[in-house]
């Protein structure tokens, strides 16, 4: 494997590893908070939705990893020449989502936990509870955009 491909593979790996970790931890926090309230009211659906909110970073990670890996031919085949510089560029392209995805997932998880506490007390506030954590997700979305635009802008082969 040429060095360029190694860099690109590292980028794809980081893009899926870091946001994946963040989402896993965040979803687990929200799940733990939600499980405590399932004993009383029948609001499983609402709690599940709030728990699922910080899962998206992991999915964005998958997306960027896939776009990057198929661009250099790691997935889907097709041999592509990737120079070391291009590989490094791709790695850098993956970084915004890798880092912001990790951090925003964790903090979105905290907002989700707070929202779950909110609807446990006041079920009718579900709409507001849904919006608060998604404000955090904005930054993961922006990072996703940057990563995607950077990776698709870099020419390889």
């Amino acid at each position, binding site marked *: 494997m040429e060095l360029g491909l190694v860099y690109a593979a590292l980028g794809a790996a980081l893009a899926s590893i870091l946001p994946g970790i963040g989402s896993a931890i965040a979803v687990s926090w929200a799940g733990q908070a939600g499980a405590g309230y399932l004993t009383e009211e029948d609001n499983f659906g609402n709690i599940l*939705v709030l728990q*699922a*909110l910080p*899962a*998206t970073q992991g*999915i*964005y990670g*998958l*997306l960027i990893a*896939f*776009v990057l890996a198929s661009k250099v031919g790691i*997935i*889907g085949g097709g041999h592509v020449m990737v120079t070391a510089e291009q590989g490094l560029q791709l790695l850098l392209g993956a970084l915004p989502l890798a880092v912001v995805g990790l951090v925003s997932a964790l903090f979105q998880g905290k907002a989700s936990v707070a929202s779950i506490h909110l609807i446990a007390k006041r079920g009718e506030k*579900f*709409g*507001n509870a*849904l*919006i608060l954590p*998604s*404000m955090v*997700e*904005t930054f993961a*979305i*922006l990072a*996703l*955009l940057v990563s*995607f*635009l950077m990776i*698709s802008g870099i020419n390889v082969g």
Partner: protein
Amino acid sequence: MLIPMKRLTLAAMRSEESKIMDKLQQISAVQVISMGEMSPDEAQSIVKKENDLLQLKKSAQSLKAYAPKVSPLAPKAEKTLEQLGDDFILSKEICDKTENLISEKTKLKGEIDKALSVIKSLEPWRELDENLEDIRPTRSAIYITGMIKDSDIEKLESIENASVTIYGGEKEKAFLLVCLKGDSESVISKLKELSYTEISFKGLKGTPLDNISRLDKDIALKRAELEKIEKELEGLGLKRDNILSGEDAVSIELEKELSKSYLLKTESVFVLEGWVRSDETEKVIDAVRSVSESAYVEFNDPKADEVPPSVVKNNKIIKPFEAVTNMYSRPAPNGIDATPLMSPFYFLFFGMMLGDTGYGLALMIICFVIQKLKKPRGAFADLIKVLIYCGLSTFICGFFMGSFCGIDFDDIFHTNNVFPLLFDPAVDSMLTMYVCFGLGIVHLMFGLLIQAVYRIKNKDIGGAIFDDISWVLLICGVLIYALAENVKNIGLAMLLLGVFLIVFFAGRAKKNPILRLIGGVKELYGVTSYLSDILSYSRIFALALSSGVIAVVLNQLGTMLREGVGGILGFVLMMIVMVFAHTFSLAINALGCFVHAARLQYVEFFGKFYEAGGTEFKPLGYNTKNTYVKN
């Protein structure tokens, strides 16, 4: 459109109170305002009803495991008020029975557990052929019974002046030690060096074997009894629906009692104050007249210090979107109903974000099935309808973006690059992004213009021009200047006019001309917030990208699976996995799109004009949880 509210004043004889309140509850048009103090009698009756409700809820919960399974898609039952009342009488009886049975069951279970643990502790002593009550100190000897570790048995047996018998047991062995009273001190001190636990048979008579068989019989009897109780509970479980309707009957009564406690009362007369929709005043008058000739009814406009609840009325198509607005907040009573203004954008944004014909179809079908089977009402029904619209929008946008569950139309129809008809977010990324920004600018400008119109209507023409139109001029000017080469100068003029209006007039509240200018410049700094607002619309592109690319990824994984397994089996396997994968992808992406389409309305759009803070109109009516009330 916001419906103006009227304040109802109704005065009638106390003797007619029940009749009138029953009727008002039936038409569900009056929200009673709390005026009087609650009397002790009323408080007592309310507390009693609340206790009834609690008891019913508890029993319903206990019987949940015994009730026949109900499909989550089954619609709620429809019952008349009389049926609910009958159910309540029935449910009281069922409740009492259930409570008795449940406490009996817990008691029996506890006794069985206790007997089982006694049997377990007696098990090692099976071979001890003595009556347990005889194992007690005599004049000359003492007995010690206990359990000891296997490794210490030899040491135990080697204790001097003591006779030791070892019985059964798994990890630890049961032992019986006998020694003379005179030797007891030395024996006990040696025994203490070993790790053993003393066991006493207090209260047990007969040999261990006798005890075990007696307890076994006892347990068998109790288990039979338990089974009987379970059977009876299962029988009661079939009647759990009665309890649920009983709950509704109580909550209807409770609501009426609460409203009654709000009334102003004298010995012979009561006065009711309440809110009524201005288009339902006739209905209220007719209803009152039907039960009382003498009642006095009057409607007034709300006074300045009275805040009526907010009620909006929209046509059938727009109405479901009220649920989206209400998730943010109801409009202030004298503000603007944002629903009709927001819904077209919500429709479009959701569709663009999800943008796939397959997902759109699936969303429509799923929600349509829920609507047909579950027959929901209220906010949930609205939400389902909104999702049906969103599915339609997703289908339309998906058609123009050219994909079906992530498969390109070109691959389906074997055409060469005919599709997408408009653009594919994953390929024409910059174009898609500009379209999103463009839509965002339209959305924001629309919000500003709404506020301008509202201000002009309220005779605040200065506010409309200096705070709203000035920004429209500025932003449109920048766009024209940057994009339209030929009319560049017009753009520049608009831009400068906008800046001028803001700098010189935005701070007009201040008298001091210098402070006023500073205030204006500060306002101009708000241009950064418009920039971030516009950039925020890039989320439409990002979500379109993510939902689209994830679908493509899933398809590629499916193809790999098919090629890996091969043959018909591979194809079948792929189809099964794909159905699950795409359902998951649809669920998580639809959630994201729903939330972010809403966010664009709440933060970017509503921020420009919407006055929140209205309260919900909750007329006295049949607000039931488990059934629908037939009138």
